[in-house]
């Protein structure tokens, strides 16, 4: 394939486009406004991008699949493994199952000011979950594990609410989480279950 003529053609196209673009009438004031708009937009995009790349501020986006129809047979989300667990390195992981119409286990206790990894799966339809006044929010799509790491700054009793329409009983889909002071918190017994990087 000949690159040179193609390159020339592209350059010519861009040059024509640029000349034509300069040729259209744009008022001075409007030019200024567009510049200001672009600077503002650039600033917003810049902050978001820097936060994403350097501070790890991202929405929950771990693309991990699971068979929602057989969670009870999966190692990770079998009933005994649900709830709060602490591994050898003292990482706190919470495994939760969403199903019409509750989150299981129905009540958990976690420490404040501690990074907590929550892993949510659905056993039936689409759900979503958020804990008001915190930034714990994720969709729970059947077939996928929704993983989110967050820190609860303030101790208190929080509701855990389903925020995606999942059927006529959707209003009733909620559970509780107690966030208690870090020093008062006692880790549950260490468990052998591991946060699966893939389903088995």
């Amino acid at each position, binding site marked *: 394939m000949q690159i040179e003529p193609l390159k020339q053609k592209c350059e010519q196209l861009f040059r024509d486009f640029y000349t034509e673009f300069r040729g259209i009438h744009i008022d001075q004031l409007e030019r200024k406004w*567009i510049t200001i708009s672009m600077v503002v937009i650039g600033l917003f995009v810049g902050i978001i991008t820097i936060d994403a790349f350097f501070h790890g501020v991202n929405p929950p986006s771990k693309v991990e699949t699971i068979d929602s129809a057989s969670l009870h047979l999966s190692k990770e989300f079998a009933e005994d493994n649900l709830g709060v667990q602490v591994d050898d390195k003292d990482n706190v992981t919470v495994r939760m199952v969403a199903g019409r119409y509750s989150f299981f286990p129905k009540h958990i206790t976690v420490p404040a000011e501690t990074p907590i990894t929550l892993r949510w799966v659905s056993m039936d339809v689409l759900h979503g979950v958020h804990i008001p006044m915190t930034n714990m929010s*994720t969709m729970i799509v059947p077939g996928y594990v929704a993983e989110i790491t967050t820190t609860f700054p303030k101790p208190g009793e929080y509701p855990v609410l389903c925020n995606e329409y999942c*059927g006529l009983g959707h209003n009733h889909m909620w559970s509780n989480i107690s966030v208690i002071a870090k020093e008062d918190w006692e880790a549950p017994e260490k468990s052998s279950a591991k946060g699966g990087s893939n389903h088995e």
Partner: protein
Amino acid sequence: MNEETRKLALSHLWVAFIAFIVACFMGEYQVLERSGFIPALDSASVYFASVSTHGVLMAFVLTTFFIMGFGYTIATASLKQPVWNMPLAWGGFWLALTGVVLAAIPLLTGKASVLYTFYPPIVAHAAFYIGATLLVAGSWVWCVIMLVMFMQWKKANAGQPVPLAMFATTMNALLWLWTSAGVALEVLFQLIPLSLGWIDTIDPGLARTLFAWTLHPIVYFWLIPAYTAFYVFVPKQAGGFLFSDEMARLAFIVLAVFALPIGFHHLYMDPEQAKGWKLLHGIGTFVVALPTLVTGFTVIASLEIAGRLRGGKGLFGWIGSLPWTNTMVLSVILSLLMLIFGGFGGIVNASYAMNAMIHNTAWVPGHFHLIFAGTTVIMYFAIAYYLWPMLVKKPLFSSPMALVQLWTWFIGMSILTTPWHVLGLLGQPRRISSVVYNNLLTLAWKPYEFMMIFGGLILLGSACLFIYNLAKTQLNPAEVAYNQQIEFAEPVHAVESLPEWLNDIKLWNKVIAVLMAISFGYPILQFFFMDTSGSSPWGF
């Protein structure tokens, strides 16, 4: 416009506005039911059937039929040509209307309470999906007619700038063809086969990705008629000139091109797409704010020209001298006010990880009611008030009533959406029919839910005035000859010639194809490479 075109446009607009008024009654019922103040109303099954119908009527029926009727009017008036292939246009109308009726049966009987955004693996009655498909197919007929009329005119008037109104309408037709492809794929290959039992499972991740393809640009499909009125009607009605014709075209181009590859801001909180793709779509979302900022500038500058021509002096004096009693001018002022607040909320939603604060909370319906039911629909009113006398050949029944209607719509929408936003910040989920959480937090929600009932009531009254005014105009027995024609705004600098890319859609169609391949190619293909497990269908 000949008799037949007027009949065609009126038929479309009446379907749109009948859907609208029915949905307004449902909306008021919903705020009442949701507040829990009247225990007798409490019923999740009626509520969710109502929410599903309200959503379909407002978002699909009102918009699609309005845009089709508006498009036929704009095409014939701006190109000075009759509608190409009138029988086909009627065919599109009847096809779409059949679809609406077919979808309405399961919706109203509670067999399609899946909300207008579908949410598989919950499955509705197949008639709902088939009806929605026919509605979209009917709108594709409209797209084809718009594209053909555009191309025929260009052929007959080589080298001449296409009238701005038609350029915008054609861009919208192109946008809609691309936009609707996503949901069409979801419905045809996933939802209809699943609802008929032809397939056993579907992947909700893929379904959500395809729906996200449609979900953002569809709002620009609804918005473009409002922007078209901003550019081609408002300056003239205000007594001035359009500030810039070229910038208007550029704004429509950027809107149509960048509205498409950015749908993942609806999936920020979803587990089935990776963060890089979300960030890419997030950046695109900010880019599409640009044409709106340009539009704000051009429209306000055009209004300032008009205000000064009318004798307004000083930095802000021109605002007072605008014709505030002209329905089009009043509408654009109120519309822009709502756009400023709604746009601000939109930037919060678009801000990637920050979306976690408001995702699926009451903030979101608060936001889209402000920007769609506020900014956009108030311009639908303005367009209807402007076109109605020309379509029915009779003067508007009552202009003061129209002004009262526009003001009450604005006030009602403010009272409805402000507490709605606050509820979201207080953590209330959207899409709940009652509050049963046994938590102190819910006490803080009560006063805001109470305010929303009043907002809804004002809106309902306003909507009734609107329909009454249009009906009385049409039913007026007076034989007053009314021969006014549609007047399009003149730009300050007349455009004699334009570069082809500002006067045609072919290049932009290719650009859209490339951008869509980049931003949706891998994210869709990944579902065929990944080891996924399908979901079986569920009732609701």
